[in-house]
Each structure stands twice: as C-alpha cells, then as structure tokens.
C-alpha cells in the first residue's frame, strides 16, 4: 500500500465522517467543497476534513480509492457517499439526515 493510500485508508477508517476536500472546513478553497462543508456544518455533524491540496499523492489517490474523478468526497463509517451533487440532493430530500442518524451520527435537528 502506498503512503497516500495508507493515509486515505486510515482517515476513512478512523473517522466516522470524513470529507476529502480542497481547503479546510474553516477555509474551503473550492465552491463544491464549500457546499458540502455548509451542509455538514448546518447539520452540526462532527467530521474530519482532509485537505487534498496539502498532498498531491492524496489528491490523486483519493480519486483512485473510490474510482471517483472529482473532489469533494464524503465518507461515513468507511462508506463512500458521494460528491457535492449527491450530498446536496440527499440533504435537500432529507435522506442524508436519515442516513446519518441510522449510522449513529449525531445530527442537529433543524429549529422548529
């Protein structure tokens, strides 16, 4: 296993929710990454952000890891969920909240 793959594998398996993104949750460097950050923050999800811009091998490696050509990529309990479009559609339909709750991830309930 290459270093990058080991780094990715470790991040995916040791964090309940991990977002591979450009920039950090505090300072997203890409609009698509930023959208997913906004959704996760809105839902009050505790997650680990991995900035792929910090490591070119991880940036390429994460595309190979799930055979997915773009970033961001969201993983929950080791499972690849999708990129920005899929996360946004799941959020808008309420599926994301249901899915996370079923996985035992704490989700902030929207104020009445």
């Amino acid at each position: 296993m290459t270093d990058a793959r080991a780094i990715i594998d470790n991040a995916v398996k040791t964090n309940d929710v991990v977002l591979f993104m450009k920039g950090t949750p505090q300072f997203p460097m890409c609009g698509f990454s930023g959208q997913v950050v906004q959704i996760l923050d809105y839902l009050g999800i505790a997650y680990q952000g991995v900035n792929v811009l910090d490591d070119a091998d991880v940036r390429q490696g994460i595309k190979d890891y799930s055979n997915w050509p773009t970033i961001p990529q969201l993983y929950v309990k080791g499972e690849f969920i999708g990129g920005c479009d899929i996360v946004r559609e799941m959020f808008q339909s309420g599926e994301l909240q249901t899915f996370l709750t079923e996985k035992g991830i704490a989700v902030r309930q929207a104020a009445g």
Partner: protein
Amino acid sequence: MARADRISAKLTAGLKPLVMNVVDESHQHAGHGGWREGGETHYRITIVADAFAGKSRLERHRLVNALLRDEFDTGLHALAIEAAAPGEAVRGL
C-alpha cells in the same frame, strides 16, 4: 470538437438520453482552482435516461463518469451531474 460536444456525443452514445443538457460553466470559475486558459474545465449536465431507472445516485454518477473518463484525463475538472430516470423530477433544465 469542443468538449461540450464530445460530452454530449459520448453520453448520447452510451446512455441514449431522452433529455440532455450540457452547459459549459468554465467561465464562472475563471481564476479559481482547476480553471485554465481556454476554459473547458467546468461543466453542468442534466440528463434523463432509462438507464438510470432503479439505480442509486452513486451508480448513476458512475455511469456518467465512466463514459467521460477520457475527458477527466484531459483537463475536465468539475462536473455537476443531475441524472434522472423518466418520470422523476428534474430541476436543472
């Protein structure tokens, strides 16, 4: 051939879409990550096809991504995808 035309041709051949719209949004990302002189980096696709029926979002996106692998390998940087089966609501047209 412009990338948008190649995308349209590949998706048409691979998925026989009932409805398809390919928009080059590269200009909206000028100066941002992945953008480059000459554009052809950022696209938005809305596509309705029988092939998506009964498939998850992940499976639908994988179908599209696989058909466009060569484009990703040659500078396609971002692809927003709305993939619907016939009868499903479509927002992006």
